[in-house]
């Protein structure tokens, strides 16, 4: 689906939040590395997609009525077989409907579970005065507690992406500490620049999170994505 088609569908449904499958598909088309994620609308589809994605897999609920997926029991990690996927699918639906009675369930997002890497966050928001702004930071505790993040205004030049990465306090973690391998800085730069290009091309995008992105010694991949678009 094109950006315009996804936008039209979201607006038709009165949504400003694109679901994970939509967001990842648009980002992937824009050259941003994201885990391949598909939408299953039945137990059988979920199992077939899991087989295709390769185990272990992750299942997440897709619902316009459920903002906090984990809290509703809508996320199942590290599923290693067809049977586990089938059981997880049913458990997700049951739990979500119990937590949010009457919730509209679009389906379940199926993706290969990417191996753990160094967690970073790449995001974008719209400042009322300066317009679209990119953000970069280390994920997890570094962003939650220390707010160790850097900002640049869109559009970005390559040096801006380099500086965003270099100026966070936790930068040495990306170089590899205590035997951890270094993160692929080039891949992180590319991710930042591709997201910046994407939001520049689509001014309807008001906010965006890739959280987390797993950075590896060779490459980086976003395992969750969230896109908020402007109201029509």
């Amino acid at each position: 689906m094109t950006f315009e088609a996804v936008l039209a569908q979201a607006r038709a449904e009165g949504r400003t939040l694109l679901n994970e499958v939509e967001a990842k598909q648009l980002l992937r088309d824009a050259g941003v590395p994201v885990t391949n994620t598909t939408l299953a609308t039945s137990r059988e589809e979920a199992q077939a997609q899991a087989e295709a994605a390769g185990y272990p897999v992750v299942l997440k609920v897709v619902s316009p009525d459920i903002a906090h997926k984990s809290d509703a029991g809508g996320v199942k990690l590290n599923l290693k077989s067809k049977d586990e996927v089938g059981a997880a699918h049913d458990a997700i639906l049951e739990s979500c409907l119990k937590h949010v009675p009457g919730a509209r369930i679009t389906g379940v997002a199926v993706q290969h579970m990417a191996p753990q890497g160094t967690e970073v966050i790449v995001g974008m928001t719209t400042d009322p005065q300066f317009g679209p702004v990119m953000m970069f930071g280390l994920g997890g505790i570094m962003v939650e507690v220390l707010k160790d993040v850097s900002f640049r205004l869109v559009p970005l030049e390559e040096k801006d992406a380099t500086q965003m990465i270099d100026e966070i306090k936790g930068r040495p973690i990306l170089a590899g500490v205590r035997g951890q391998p270094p993160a692929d800085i080039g891949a992180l730069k590319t991710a930042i620049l591709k997201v910046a290009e994407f939001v520049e091309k689509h001014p309807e995008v008001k906010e965006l999170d890739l959280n987390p992105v797993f950075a590896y010694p060779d490459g980086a991949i976003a395992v969750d994505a969230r896109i908020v678009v402007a109201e029509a």
Partner: protein
Amino acid sequence: MSVPGHRLDRMFNPKVVAVVGDKGPMYMWLRNNMPFKEKGGTLYSVQLDPAQIPGIEALGVKNVTSMSEIPEPIDYALVAVPRQVSPFVLKDLIANGAGGAGFFTSGFAETGEELGIKLQGQLVEMAKEANFNLVGPNCMGLYLPKAGVRFNADAPVTDDGRVGFLSQSGTHGIMFSLVAGANGIGLSRCASIGNAVVLDVSDYIDYLMQDDETEVIGMYVEGVRNGRKFFETLREACKRKPVIVWKGGATEAGSRATMSHTGSLAAPSAIWEGMMRQCGAITTQNLDETIDTMKALLSAKKPRGNRMALLAQTGGQSVSITDAFARAGWEVPAFTDSTYATLGEFFNIIGGSFKNPLDMAGTVQGKTETLDKILSIIEADPNIDGMAMELSAMFAARQWKANPAVLDTTLDIIKAHMNASDKPFVAILHPAHEMEYIGSIMHKFHEREIPVFQSFERAANAMRRVSDYWASR
């Protein structure tokens, strides 16, 4: 020089100036602008009430009771009339074809009052329709040292200013101008921009970045009206010349709804900082930092590395100068063996040290030729990228007062080394117990363009900012 064709060019290079609404016997605005008249400019007073202009003949200024009596276009006008009258004055200025006007008049939107907001709206509408260059309102207008147009009677009249300054605050504009002058920093052009409702800070930056006489741009800003335009103009300006941005006031945290993690982390101050780095601007937090950074930019050579030679007068100060520079991120490396060998030939080891920092009072003891020798040796050391040297008021003021030639010779030697070297040199002179005397000799440093700072920290931090700036180019 000027920027031909720029919309602000006439008002920034005025030949005809009018002061509207000044009153005797004080004549604050006419007196501010006397240098303009003395330099051959045409200065008019516009005051319709003859009772308000006692003794104006003594100033040699022609008063007209209506702007229509002025037979030529006004390049710049300073308007100091009651707010209710300001739209009528603006109408006359537009009819005259004036190049621009600073509205000292206040009581507009900044008051939050209905009438003030309404009157400001009227001014904005009229100015925008006529494409008129309205400075302010609620400002001190322009300070053009070369033309002799001033916003304060103490502001220096100089021909060779190199710094352009913009200030959202009238007080900071004046204070900066005066303190810069007292530090030997001359201004090319300065604007107190007030409410900036017609001309925004970006419009002035656009002029200053193209102005050949302006080598460095500085500004005091609290907030900007058009964020994107500011970003784009500032980024362009930073490509052309160093820009120092002193941001005042905590930016209000906009309480806006956000559905993303990124949005919840995007504090206005963090975005501002990111934008400053993106543009390549130098940021400062107060007047002193702003002045110090300009001083270092204008009169120290570009540092090519991070290794400083520190020359102090005593042991205690050797420790303190090292603390200050180390905290500002400078390295204080050992000299080369050959430097040690040469210094060792004459250095007085008793009460002195010739490691880095160099504790040299015991060796120099007022002998300027020894100072000359030490500076030559340190300057040539390949381990060193720059030099910071303490001058001690505590020890030397008595000698300098008794024999001013010693001070002059010392400064001449320093200047000769600065000229001959491609490494930066900065001097530190704490006034100690001699504040009045040290104040009286500062001009000797400024005339020679020797960058001098009142504390080790101020020197170290100013050089840090400048060094980081050049390294990022």
